């Protein structure tokens, strides 16, 4: 039985909760895993720091909240500052590279940086930042398959923006594959 805990974080409006919904749906409906998603409620979900948590496992999840995330996706400075300390040695830290100023090189962590907002603007609109980040997350963590993530999108993004969301996801995914290669070559 392997259990993985993931925290998605950023500021309200970046589509953080949507990230967790898409990943949870992909895992539990299309990747044959168990997934439980919990999220911020109250004022923090509506503008300031916002987080959504996902526990995934091969068997039924009993404790629904995360206790020690193995993966942190931080799309804002505040989210990074607040949560990076939770990661254990060897944990995966993914940050929005234009929005997050790192406090260290984090030699104990697997650090990945993605210009998600910039890529989203290239695709058409910064509203797609979360999908770029999710594509990148999918490539570097391999906790969920890209196929399942794309299948999970209908119903969770507006129909008329489905294609462009997939394009944003793929842009992030491809950048993630490259990042993995670079990291592999460096080590």
């Amino acid at each position, binding site marked *: 039985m392997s259990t993985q805990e993931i925290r998605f974080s950023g500021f309200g409006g970046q589509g953080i909760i949507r990230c967790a919904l898409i990943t949870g749906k992909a895992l539990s409906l299309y990747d044959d895993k168990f997934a439980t998603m*919990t999220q911020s409620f109250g004022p923090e979900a509506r503008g300031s720091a916002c987080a959504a948590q996902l526990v995934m496992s091969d068997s039924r999840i*009993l404790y629904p909240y995360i206790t020690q995330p193995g993966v942190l996706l931080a799309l804002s400075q505040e989210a990074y500052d607040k949560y990076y300390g939770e990661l254990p040695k060897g944990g995966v830290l993914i940050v929005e590279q234009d929005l997050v100023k790192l406090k260290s090189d984090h030699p104990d962590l697997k650090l990945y940086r993605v210009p998600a907002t910039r890529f989203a603007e290239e695709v058409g609109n910064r509203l797609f930042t979360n999908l770029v980040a999710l594509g990148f997350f999918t490539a570097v963590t391999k906790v969920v398959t890209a196929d399942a993530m794309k299948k999970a999108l209908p119903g969770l993004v507006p129909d008329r923006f489905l294609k462009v969301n997939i394009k944003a996801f793929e842009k992030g995914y491809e950048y993630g594959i490259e990042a993995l290669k670079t990291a592999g070559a460096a080590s």
Partner: protein
Amino acid sequence: MKTVTADPKGVDAGPHFMDGDHALAEGALAAGCRFFAGYPITPSTETAERFAERAPEVGALFIQMEDELASIAALIGAAWGGKKCMTVTCGPGFSLMVENIGLACITETPLVIANVQRGGPSTGLPTLTAQQDMMQAKWGPHGDNAMIALSPDSPQECFDLAVEAFNLSEYYRVPVIILTDETVGHMHEKVVIPPADQIKVVPRNNYSGPKEDFRPYKFNSQGGHPMTQAGDGYNFHITGLVHDERGYPVMTAEQGKIVVTHLMEKINGNADKIIRLEEDQVDGADVVVVSYGITSRIAVKAIQDARKEGLKVGSLRLITIWPFCEKRIRELAPKIKAFVVPEINYGQMVLEVERCAAGQCKVISVNHCGGAVHEPEVILDAIRKAAK
């Protein structure tokens, strides 16, 4: 209970990644609920939102009322207007509904109320979890009442138990309360909604015989008595006063005995048919953990760890909260060392366990003041102590 298959219009069949609140709305729609009146309150609002969104395509009616007092009153009216009906709320709203829940009990009006519990008392902890309204569900309304309450442990069970709540409510003509909590209400998991032909629902049982023979009540301590809907041409009268089988007030001690006995016994006397429990390794156990709702999942984690230490621990999960599983607790008490009862309140259902255990074994409360779930280690510690 006579059942039919669900109306496909209300069934959004297939796998979903859905929170417990939304699953409650889907379960209600699948069960044939076509009237919802409520007032928004965290953490139950998502149920109302889902119902409102789906109502037009299903052909249901959704009304946002001015408050919770009006919401429950609207349900009583809608039920006698022929609709299966539901409302959702949490502690503060439930407190406001209590008077008319009593009216629904004595008028034998079927309706379903979901209480997505948050921390109290009063407005307490609006966005944080609790299980503090367990006793209120039973003892809220004044006078002797017997009602049914169910507690789901997952979004999937929110769907399943919403269907069951309507079925029990229709058959026994009693308010059924779904006692869930903020954690289950707000967490997303996979929910599989079966196709309509695999969902069994108890249809509204409307009388169709000669007009002069219609009686809205029969005081026989059983469910299954037909009702009518306003406008169908059958004379009926409902009142909060003690009444005869036509529904007209008869305010005597003798009639009070007949009515109250019926109201109590139609539930308590059928407890064996109503109660659902989930047991795991209870036979031969030294310690049995009694839990419900989200706490039962945390408890299983603690039980698994305790078993790794060689302790003989069983799990008894209450799916039905009220009527309480008195008989099973009485059977187990002399055979075990202790019951451990974790709950997100200061100790409520543990009082029932203690009452039924009647001193034949230890009963250990693992209480929590709300706002979060237990740490599994706290329950594990209690199991270790109980096993000594």
